[in-house]
């Protein structure tokens, strides 16, 4: 087997779909040109097979062998949307890749700009041109290349200098698979200028059970000096929901960026999180995956300490039940000259069943000599001592297990700073673990 799957249906379909968006392609300007070159790059490459080092544990063969409909209508109503109770937020809803103003709710935004990307290209051309495609690599990365070439819609955020935005933006990607296998390719661009602050929440929702939903998402986040960004992604979708999600973050000097990914269900999920750090940056990457059934989740993270004096902290925890599989690959690069770097990484996994599996791999490349880096990973069953202790105090086996698992998830949950979001996540996790929140 080669490192790539050649002649994939998705590639052929995508290339023939190019005609449909010819107009956008032939337009003048930087964006169209970036999309043309992404399409060219995409046409020259294939999707990675499990022989490819970065895709060893995640087999996308089935995913790329389907004939997806690009776009497609949906009869979804506002009542069906997966919203977060009590969350004050600007809500942007995308259905089958298209922005749906009728389902969205953008409140008074003040100086901040919130717009679907297609509008922002026209209304905020300069900012979009400067940042679009600047952080998510398309060379040798077929999924981001595919997204870049076809990216029609997504969230565009521009937070001007010194504006602290209190109301988060909630983006919901709905895929309606009632009629066919459907692909949706959200493309987000978040630009937070100097000394500004912003919170971004992403969620996805699949309608219909028979066909496959495939979300191939790319988010680019630019965090200017002294700016602070909190970024959350929730993956609590149906088993026919597949997702390849790439988040590329550029942190300028003295900026703070916190990323938290919560995965509770879905089909096959691959998350790529790539972060480049300037000097005196603070970075947190948090992940929690609580899986059962046949859900497969692969978290690939990479943090690049390019300059000295920055801190990165990574905490990913997993509970795997049923026949679920988890993959964690955490890369830390410390470049030559990036002295006084602090980089910490931890990945802990509990296997609840004999058939669940987890592969975890830390990868550290350190070229500076005055740094403090550590990493640790564990995979094991739930400890018996605490179980016995709880049971000996009268707590039933099931309850004791739920209590311990919920506690295990606790330190990742603690990282969620938006109260309504935190309770939402607590509820979905408690439900999964049969834990009684009261």
């Amino acid at each position, binding site marked *: 087997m080669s490192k790539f799957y050649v002649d994939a249906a998705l590639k052929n379909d995508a290339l023939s779909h190019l005609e449909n968006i010819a107009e956008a392609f032939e337009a003048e300007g930087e964006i169209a040109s970036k999309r043309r070159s992404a399409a060219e790059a995409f046409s020259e490459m294939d999707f990675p097979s499990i022989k490819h080092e970065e895709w060893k544990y995640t087999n996308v063969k089935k995913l790329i062998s389907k004939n997806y409909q690009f776009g497609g209508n949906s009869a979804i109503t506002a009542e069906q949307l997966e919203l977060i109770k009590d969350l004050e937020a600007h809500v942007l809803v995308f259905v089958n890749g298209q922005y749906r103003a009728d389902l969205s709710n953008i409140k008074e935004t003040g100086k901040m700009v919130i717009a679907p990307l297609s509008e922002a290209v026209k209304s905020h051309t300069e900012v979009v041109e400067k940042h679009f495609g600047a952080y998510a690599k398309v060379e040798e990365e077929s999924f981001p290349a595919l997204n870049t070439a076809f990216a029609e819609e997504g969230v565009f955020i521009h937070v001007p200098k010194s504006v602290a935005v209190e109301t988060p933006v909630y983006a919901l990607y709905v895929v309606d698979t009632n009629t066919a296998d459907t692909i949706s390719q959200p493309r987000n661009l978040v630009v937070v200028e100097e000394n500004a602050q912003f919170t971004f929440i992403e969620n996805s929702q699949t309608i219909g059970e028979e066909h496959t939903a495939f979300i191939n998402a790319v988010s680019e986040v630019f965090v200017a000096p002294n700016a602070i960004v909190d970024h959350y992604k929730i993956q609590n979708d149906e088993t026919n929901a597949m997702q390849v999600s790439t988040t590329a973050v550029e942190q300028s000097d003295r900026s703070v960026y916190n990323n938290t990914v919560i995965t509770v269900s879905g089909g096959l999920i691959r998350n790529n999180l790539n972060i480049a750090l300037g000097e005196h940056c603070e970075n947190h990457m948090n992940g929690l995956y609580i899986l059962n059934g046949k859900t497969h989740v692969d978290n690939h993270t990479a943090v690049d300490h390019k300059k000295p004096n920055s801190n990165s902290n990574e905490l990913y925890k997993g509970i795997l039940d049923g026949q679920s599989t988890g993959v964690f690959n955490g890369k830390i690069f410390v470049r030559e000259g990036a002295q006084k770097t602090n980089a910490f990484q931890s990945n802990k996994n509990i296997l609840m069943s004999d058939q669940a599996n987890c592969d975890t791999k830390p990868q550290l490349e350190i070229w500076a000599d005055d740094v403090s880096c550590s990493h640790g990973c564990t995979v094991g069953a739930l400890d018996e001592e605490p179980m*016995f202790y*709880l049971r*000996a105090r*009268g*707590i*039933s086996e099931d309850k*004791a297990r739920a209590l311990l698992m919920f506690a*295990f998830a606790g*330190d990742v949950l603690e990282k969620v700073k938006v109260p309504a979001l935190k309770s939402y996540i607590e509820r979905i996790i408690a439900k999964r673990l049969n834990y009684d929140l009261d």
Partner: protein
Amino acid sequence: MLKINNLQASIEDKQILKGINLEVKPGEVHAIMGPNGSGKSTLASVLAGKEDYEVNGGDVEFLGEELLEMSPEERAQKGLFLAFQYPVEIPGVSNTNFLKTAVNEIRKARGEEPFDAVTFLKEMKEKMKIVNIDQSLMGRALNEGFSGGEKKRNEIFHMAMLQPQLAILDETDSGLDIDALKVVANGVNALRDGERSFIVVTHYQRLLDYIVPDFVHVLYKGKIVKSGTKELALELEEKGYDWIIKEVEEKESK
């Protein structure tokens, strides 16, 4: 209350308990003493239902029911309590939260209404006084970062909250300074009501100055080799265990 009949148990093919016989009546306090490795803690663990041990003989009757058939939680719900020698640290589970779950599970099993938040807090405040435990330990994760004394005190506090019929204290005195020891003993004594029974497992006699037992048993090589009253404990303190070991070995060689 409790009737242990010829109880035998092993771990990883090693026979630890080799036929224990013991009867505890309501309101009685029994002390179980013995040199290290005699099987004291094993006895406590087997009674509480620890699955690491294999029971390969004998039976135990607790309040008229077959104890060994029950899961650990059923034993606790029926009224058995084990104060652990080494209380387990459980990060992420708050002491209060845990206790509320435990108390209400036990109440539910006994057919009582679960406590609401207010009643529970009131109950907790009351019981905290008994063991003189610090409020700050309530909000913290269960036993995590507690000092040795705090852990033991917390065990007695749990006992006070759970109101067991029979409490087994597994070397609760080990590693305690005299002040902490008194607090623990006072906690136990406050719960002595003529009905509730105790089995106090200890290596040293000192604890028994404060928790005065009705009976003292010496466990050696998995058997109770001598029983007596509190005077036996004093004798052991004075003379050590060697004379008993010698007695046993002489008997065996005959």
